[in-house]
């Protein structure tokens, strides 16, 4: 397991805002795929995952507004109460932005262990709002998605860092 303090650090190019927007739209797309049956339980909340990733990696380039708007879109797509995902994503973005220095100290598994509680918090907020609106507890399988999302965190990091890799310098080949 590589420790961020000892591992050789890559210097990455600045991320383009367009790339952030693209990944967020892709995450929304993944959420909108026709998941059904058991897959619905296993499905990670891709939007929450990508929002959290950018809040931790680039807290200055993504704001609450983006997270909040994506939440509204999720609410419309799922036909849920208007604002429940918006509130959850806003709080998730806050947690990501506040904790970003701490989380970036770690890499690999310890980082995942920071991410999963944050995603569970996101689930709990939605659950709380639904409980206030009179819904029943849907069972503990409701939380599976967040653990799957936690497992997806390291590959997601690799994937989203790819475009920021500096191009090989032709003069120092």
């Amino acid at each position, binding site marked *: 397991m590589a420790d961020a303090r000892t591992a050789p650090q890559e210097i990455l190019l600045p991320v383009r805002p367009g790339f952030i927007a693209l990944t967020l*739209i892709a995450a*929304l*797309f993944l*959420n*909108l*795929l*026709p*998941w*059904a049956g058991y897959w*619905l*339980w296993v*499905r990670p909340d891709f939007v929450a995952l990508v929002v959290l990733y950018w809040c931790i990696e680039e807290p*200055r380039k993504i*704001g*609450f*507004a983006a997270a*909040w708007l994506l*939440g*509204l*879109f999720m609410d*419309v*797509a*799922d*036909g*849920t*109460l*208007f*604002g*429940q995902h*918006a*509130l959850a994503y*806003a*709080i998730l*973005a*806050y947690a990501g*932005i*506040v904790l970003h220095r701490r989380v970036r100290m770690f890499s690999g598994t310890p980082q995942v262990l920071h991410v999963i509680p944050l995603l569970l918090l996101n689930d709990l907020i939605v659950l709380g*709002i*639904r409980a206030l*609106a*009179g*819904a*029943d507890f*849907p069972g503990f399988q*409701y939380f599976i998605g967040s653990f799957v999302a936690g497992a997806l965190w390291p590959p997601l990091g690799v994937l989203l860092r790819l475009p920021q890799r500096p191009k090989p310098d032709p003069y120092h080949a």
Partner: protein
Amino acid sequence: MEYSPPPFFKTGPTPLVRLLIFSALSLTLLVADARFNYLTPLRQIAAAIIYPLQRTASAPASIARRIGDFFVTHSSLRADNARLAEENFSNAARLQQLKGLQAENAQLRALVAARERLNVKVLAAEVLYAARDPFTRKIIVDKGLQDEIKAGRAVVDDRGIVGQVTRVYPWLSEVTLITDKGQLVPVQNLRNGLRAVLAGTGNDGVLELRFVPLNADFRNGDELVTSGIDGVYPPGLPVAQVSNVERNAAQLFARITCTPLAGVASHTRVLIVSEPRDVPPRPAEEQRPPRPKKPRKG
């Protein structure tokens, strides 16, 4: 301190302030939506924005389905054809009977000067996806305001009632299934005409008859059809079958569970039934009789 340092790093309000702003906004929206239903236009704008994304996301599944349709085997086609021909044959006989009955019914209704029931019109719609929300049972279909769908329309499949249109967007609409928790359908027992209210439980394939007295005559296997007294569902459509009757003398009401007849959780096409008839205006608040239609939760 008189002079504050120059703002080298302008970052706007702190995260906490922003969080409070956006939380307040979300809470306002939540209350406005849950309590007052003010947000229909806002919802429709948002729905129109993500419509292309929704359609593209559900495209792979429908394309796969179409490809699957293309590669059906000859034998399955033939079996289908034979089955359909047979069904058509038996239906034709029933249809002739129905025509006779309709004519007779019209005559009888004219005799008792009853209001004539309008013909029910239906519109076929394709199910795009089931809402990815573990708390509710909803499906999204591909017909909306453009096709003059209105909220409150009944949705059926070839076997019975599926649900009710609850929200309409420009090109899509949202159907709440009868299995959704608290979704109510006024029904009638086909065997003896007893009326009751059928409520969803939030579990797939389980419905529950509410507020049925212990001595009411419901048996296993009884078929329940819509009674039509709510003015939402057209009367006489099959809804569910009684699967279990539990009478416990310690309780006030019998516990009757039913299974829906329609493939509530598994279909790709549904029919949206247009306004069946004009309903007389509701009686004034004061003289309203106790309605079984909207019982309080409990």
